[in-house]
């Protein structure tokens, strides 16, 4: 049986590779198991799948030809940028083509007068800011993977970063995309102007996780590099006080460029790893202020006072660039630092209304004891985006499953307090079941209708981002949601 299936798969793979080689250069088609292996997963390595073939086109015409071929043969297509995503959004489809945009890696133009850059989707996020620095400009969204992640992937996920409370997400910082639909039609969404005629399709495409089209070019908006940036570090003996301080700062009318929180376990891990000089305490806040020289001076004084009034046991203002980098080093190294404490860790990505922080952290602590798995909490405190890191050991039988169950509970907790299951990593494959908790059947159906308007045959990244109602019924998300059962119209089995 298995041998027969293997044989069928091999046949299908062979036929597909032949057809792809007829429209692409030989080096742009991979179809042997060894050559496919590097593409079997993205940044979420717990999920792995080999596609039938990987294609590495270099021109829009080649992408068009691939999509038309796949459309004609009804073969699923999964687009992939740098493969750094954390939700399995670029996980290949077993019967599909993985479309890598890695060779779309050119910055096409920089216009400093208009403050825009036209880039191909495979360009790395940080490469844009590096290229525009000589003009005194930069691209604001800075996901933690910015050294490696691609701008195309950023658009697909609507990536955020440390600075998005003040500077917004990807959706706020792009002006235009060129996109191919599955039938090979090239669409321009947005423009170099600040708005466009018709529906805001640019907003709809941003964060659509490769479900609606394949992006082949992006025009990003650039900002002037701030004159000055300075960080204040505050230590607290209770996480509630740190949470309160965040509200006090924002309520006082100061919007920090970055506002990050770490709990005791995350602090200790970071300290052991990079020796950032963090104090021993229950929570630290890192508050970065940027703007003109005068503005930063004024805000630093104001923020120091607010932090002390909120009960900070220690407040340090960075004295020089070296100290600023050291303050940030611990936060930026938090994930790998936590990784040293345990063979594996699982990063969650819920967002909550910040006023519920103490109760959510308390409940996460309880769950941690129930599941016998430690958690370190790193938090984009300014915008309520929580990254609990669950420590586990994949080699211990059952521990990954227990971790996923624990993670699922955390996400459901985020929904219960009025938040969301994903702030910036996307739903992908990972959180597909929790979508059944966050959305009602009618809302999921509306999403499917939107997808069908772009991709009626459902061939782009099938099975990701939006669950079928059938899947939700199987998942058994029979939660009481806004006073009603999630899927009253479905049979239960």
């Amino acid at each position: 049986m298995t041998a027969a299936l293997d044989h069928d798969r091999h046949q299908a793979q062979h036929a597909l590779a032949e057809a792809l080689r007829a429209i692409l250069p030989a080096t742009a088609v991979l179809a042997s198991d060894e050559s496919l292996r590097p593409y079997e997963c993205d940044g979420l390595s717990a999920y792995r799948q080999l596609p039938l073939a990987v294609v590495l086109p270099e021109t829009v015409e080649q992408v068009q030809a691939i999509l038309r071929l796949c459309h004609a043969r009804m073969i699923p297509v999964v687009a992939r940028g740098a493969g750094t995503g954390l939700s399995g959004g670029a996980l290949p489809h077993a019967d599909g083509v993985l479309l890598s945009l890695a060779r779309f890696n050119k910055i096409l133009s920089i216009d400093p007068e208009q403050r825009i850059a036209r880039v191909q989707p495979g360009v790395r996020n940080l490469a844009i800011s590096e290229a525009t620095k000589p003009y005194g400009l930069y691209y604001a969204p800075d996901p933690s993977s910015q050294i490696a992640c691609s701008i195309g992937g950023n658009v697909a996920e609507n990536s955020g970063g440390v600075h998005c409370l003040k500077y917004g997400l990807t959706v706020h910082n792009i002006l235009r995309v060129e996109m191919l639909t599955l039938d090979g039609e090239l669409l321009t969404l947005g423009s170099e102007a600040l708005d466009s005629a018709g529906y805001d399709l640019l907003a709809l495409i941003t964060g659509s996780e490769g479900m609606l089209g394949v992006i082949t070019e992006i025009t990003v908006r650039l900002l002037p590099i701030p004159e000055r940036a300075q960080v204040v570090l505050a230590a607290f003996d209770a996480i509630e006080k740190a949470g309160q301080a965040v509200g006090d700062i924002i309520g006082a009318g100061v919007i920090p460029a970055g506002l990050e929180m770490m709990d005791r376990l995350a602090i200790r891990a970071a300290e052991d790893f990079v020796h950032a000089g963090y104090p021993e305490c229950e929570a630290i806040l890192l508050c970065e202020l940027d703007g003109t020289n005068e503005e930063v001076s004024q805000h630093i004084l104001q923020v120091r006072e607010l932090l002390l009034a909120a009960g900070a046991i220690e407040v340090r203002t960075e004295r020089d660039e070296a100290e600023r980098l050291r303050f940030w080093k611990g936060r930026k190294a938090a994930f790998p630092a936590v990784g040293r404490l345990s063979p594996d860790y699982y990063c969650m990505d819920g967002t909550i209304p910040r006023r519920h922080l103490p109760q959510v952290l308390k409940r996460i602590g309880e769950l941690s004891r129930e599941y016998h798995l430690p958690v370190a909490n790193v938090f984009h405190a300014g915008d309520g985006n929580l990254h609990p890191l669950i420590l586990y050991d994949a080699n211990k039988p059952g521990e990954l499953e227990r971790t996923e169950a624990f993670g699922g509970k955390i996400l459901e907790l985020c929904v219960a307090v009025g938040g969301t299951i994903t702030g910036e990593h996307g739903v992908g494959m990972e959180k597909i079941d929790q979508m059944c908790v966050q959305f009602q059947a009618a809302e999921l159906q509306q999403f499917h209708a939107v997808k069908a308007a772009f991709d009626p045959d459902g061939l782009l990244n099938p099975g990701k981002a939006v669950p079928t109602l059938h899947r939700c019924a199987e998942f058994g998300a029979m939660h009481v949601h806004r006073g009603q059962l999630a899927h009253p119209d479905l049979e239960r089995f």
Partner: protein
Amino acid sequence: MLTAADIVEQVRAAAARNSALAICAGGSKDFLGRRTQGTPLDVSDLRGIVHYEPTELVITARAGTPLAEIEATLAERGQMLGFEPPHFGPTATLGGTIACGLSGPARPFRGAARDFVLGAKIVNAKGEMLSFGGEVMKNVAGYDVSRLLCGAYGTLGVVLEISLKVLPRPASEITLALELDEGDACARMRDWQRAPLPLSGLCYAGNRLYVRLSGAEQAVGAARRRLGGEVDMRGAAFWEQLREQRGAFFDGGGELWRLSVPPTTHALAVTGQQLIDWGGALRWFKTAQDATRVFAAARAAGGHAMRFRGAADAQQIFQPLPAPLLALHRRLKQAFDPHGMFNPGRMYAEF
């Protein structure tokens, strides 16, 4: 009092009769866009602020809530709507403001209406109440339907409730005015936007360049010394008039066109008087020129035009869409409203 359930009822009834609905409230923006047919669906009694959390920069209000009430509530806590929406009269509501998606002079510096939309509750054509997005800044679960509703002129559904990100009011704000010719003014607008300055408005009108500076007191003071010019004591009134398209340039009859173009656009092939806002990215024209020419000029510049005021019924108001995009618009409209029930023809004759 009108409730969301009443709206659901009315939508279901209209669907059963197969009749169109013209969603309305204060009527302040009736002059925008194309005329629509259908039974009026008045949502002005669906009002009230549902939730406001100043320390989290978020407000949620029902669609019929007067815009003025929202702004007054925010002002009490030293906050504001960052996109500086036009009102077009005291009856303006939040729902209409988001449906039309217009933003004021601060748009290039603080963002557009859609940038501040965090979530929305709507009724679709099946009479189902749907909720998208939420009250948090970062939320990537599901497609971003709430932002799609912004600027859709009510053609995708009846908006019941909207959550918006709000901003602190700047501690200090001044307006500078400089007497300059157009070339000089454009050059300065271009250069200043490349510099880290606390700008919140850049408009060239009647041979004067108006510069609004907002932020921490010392930052505004330093920028003022750097940019020169004189402080215009009537600055606040100037920006308010500009936001509402009132004042010397705008008053009077005739056609008023809004052209949204790349900010460094030089000469546009449009005749008539021009006012430049958004640091160069928004051009207002008073012109009697043929519409096809204005649309062509906007397209040639890489932007789009909208006949803002003074159009006769049934005329093209918005920039014609290229065929593949128009087809996509129709499919998307059908995804929400398969029988064309909501505000048919309000944006384009085709949907």
